[in-house]
């Protein structure tokens, strides 16, 4: 077969956002003087005016700078490429050879980091204009305050750092921006591929989002996905794609993997309040989604549960997507409920900044008015006894908010940390749809950072809170939740009104990083 045809079906599988690194290309531009002379910008006497002296010093400065570059940046975020050195003499010529040499790694380079011996400012500015990628420098005297304004005035994105910490902060957020541009979302669709029934507060236009952030979408029809979850070694038998031999039905072997995962999930839980077959069933759709994501090279996921719910197929198949979201997020694969793409993107940012799995849910303020916590659902959504108990526990605390959904993580303190205790309960009262139940009361006093994009994709809400309670550990449904205090819940609510319902959160104070990230993404950052 023509290899181009064979290659058409080759995939590279899933590339997780948390594994993306920022490729930094250091360039050292050195000056030497061909001629011996002294003048207003050349100092020294005797041997100090010789070419050999300039070259010896250039080499020394380059050597120690190269050594510093190799160790000063966080290797989790940054991949420092082999430094490039460019020499120029006092004729100050900028040749095409120099520009080509400086740009020879442009395909893999994300950011150029300049250091200089003497004054090659014009060369850096011309290079920056031509290469079209961000450039940066450590603060020095006085190149950074010359080159950066010159580049910015010419529309080049550039940064200068006061110290290593500042450089690492900027590189860390540029890494996340790069990872966002490489996000590829598997988006399960029923009727509308832009917004779901329950989350019209999602992005107004996914096309705009792709143009702005680079993140892409791969859509799959929900019925096709559901049918793939039926164990069948012969994909031609798939009802939705009849006769196609390249379908993605999970095989018997993959179903055994799903069963093994379910058994491990049950074994590690403090309590399991579900029948094994219903837990296995939940892992059936999880394993199917993994298979499709790998085939489509996707590294993020969302599905419109209410739209799918209305088809009655969830009820028929006996699973929900909640556990898939939990497991995805725990594995560094941003995953959002209800086809809420702004929440998905915010979760991605939070996960990548904090390196912690995120949690997402309906977020409301819960002020105590007339002795009653307002706006907290009581009844089918949140168990009334649990809410009453939480009311007592919260007492008269002010500025309280609640985020609730059945998608908590068992690793709130970071990817790869020790698993926290959890129990398993069904989403549905009839017993299907495994969900993780996590007792947020264990973490009272923990600082959390929240974020959400607005529907236009031009603003980013970044907020901070402190956990003050939990609800739903012993319940079913979406009732799992965390109470937290913010500085001013009225202000928080007013700001939320420009963003949307689900507000993802991670543990820790990541305000500084998220604000900087919002800025490098070109967003208006609103803090609360």
């Amino acid at each position, binding site marked *: 077969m023509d290899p181009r045809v064979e290659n058409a079906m080759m995939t590279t599988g899933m590339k997780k956002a948390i594994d993306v690194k920022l490729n930094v290309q250091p360039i050292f531009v050195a000056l030497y003087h061909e001629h011996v002379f002294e003048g207003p910008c050349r100092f020294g006497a005797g041997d*100090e005016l010789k070419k050999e002296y300039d070259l010896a*010093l250039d080499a020394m400065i380059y050597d120690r700078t190269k050594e510093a570059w190799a160790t000063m940046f966080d290797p989790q975020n940054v991949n420092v490429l082999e430094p490039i050195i460019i020499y120029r003499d006092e004729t100050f010529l900028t040749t095409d050879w120099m520009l080509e040499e400086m740009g020879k790694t442009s395909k893999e380079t994300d950011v150029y980091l300049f250091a200089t011996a003497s004054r090659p400012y014009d060369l850096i500015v011309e290079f920056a204009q031509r290469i079209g990628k961000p450039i940066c420098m450590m603060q020095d005297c006085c190149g950074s305050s010359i080159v950066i304004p010159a580049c910015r005035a010419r529309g080049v994105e550039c940064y200068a750092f006061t110290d290593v910490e500042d450089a690492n902060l900027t590189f860390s957020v540029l890494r996340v921006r790069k990872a966002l541009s490489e996000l590829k979302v598997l988006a399960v669709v029923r009727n509308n591929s832009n917004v779901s029934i329950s989350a019209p507060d999602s992005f107004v236009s996914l096309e705009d989002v792709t143009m702005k952030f680079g993140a892409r979408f791969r859509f799959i029809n929900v019925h096709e996905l559901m049918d793939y979850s039926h164990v069948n070694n012969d994909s031609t038998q798939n009802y939705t794609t009849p006769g196609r031999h390249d379908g993605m039905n999970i095989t018997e072997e993959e179903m055994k993997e799903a069963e093994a995962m379910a058994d491990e999930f049950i074994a590690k839980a403090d309590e399991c309040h579900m029948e094994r077959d219903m837990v296995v069933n939940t892992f059936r759709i999880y394993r199917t989604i993994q298979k499709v994501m790998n085939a489509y090279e996707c590294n993020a996921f969302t599905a419109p549960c209410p739209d799918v719910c209305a088809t009655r197929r969830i009820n028929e198949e006996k699973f929900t997507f909640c556990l898939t979201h939990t497991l995805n997020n725990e594995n560094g694969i941003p995953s959002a409920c209800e086809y809420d793409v702004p929440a998905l993107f915010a979760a991605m940012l939070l996960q990548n900044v904090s390196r912690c799995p995120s949690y997402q849910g309906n977020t409301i303020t819960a002020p105590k008015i007339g002795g009653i916590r307002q706006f907290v659902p009581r009844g089918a959504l949140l168990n009334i006894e649990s809410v009453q108990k939480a009311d007592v526990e919260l007492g008269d605390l002010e500025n309280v908010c609640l985020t609730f959904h059945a998608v908590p993580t068992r690793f709130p303190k970071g990817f790869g940390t020790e698993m926290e205790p959890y129990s398993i309960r069904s989403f549905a009262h009839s017993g299907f749809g495994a969900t993780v139940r996590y007792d947020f009361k264990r973490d009272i006093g923990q600082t959390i950072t929240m974020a959400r994009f607005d529907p236009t994709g031009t603003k980013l809400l970044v907020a901070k809170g402190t956990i003050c309670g939990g609800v739903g550990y012993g319940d079913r449904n979406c009732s799992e939740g965390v109470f937290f205090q913010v500085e001013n819940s009225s202000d928080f609510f007013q700001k939320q009104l420009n963003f949307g319902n689900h507000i993802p959160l991670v543990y820790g104070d990541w305000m500084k990083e998220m604000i900087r990230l919002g800025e490098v993404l070109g967003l208006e950052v609103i803090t609360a």
Partner: protein
Amino acid sequence: MSYLNVLKRLKAADEVSAAEVKAILSMDHPSEGQVYPHLRGYLLSRFLLDDSVQTDDLKKLVSSSISKSLEISEGDLDVTDLSDRCISAPSVETKLALAMLKFEEALGIKVDVMERVNCVTVADYAGVVSRYL
């Protein structure tokens, strides 16, 4: 130290360093081991240091020399020795570069800049120099 004493000391240092160079040049293709004591003697004299200095690290030798002449600690020198030139080189580097270039000039050799910059110790440098002789 009086001005005259300084001049005397510099003259004596010049004589010692010239003698060390002469000793190296008197040998036919000297080995690293043969170059080393004379190179060390040369650098100590150029940097106005005596044999009590233990370090073999080139930059530390220069630091000792500068801090001694400025009558400050080497720790203080690390903090204060900032670039005073437009190519961002502190005085430790400029002084070392000048000493090495002077040494090579006296021997009539030109060591490759990158080979030179990779020399951390006097022994490293003696090894490189011996290959050029």
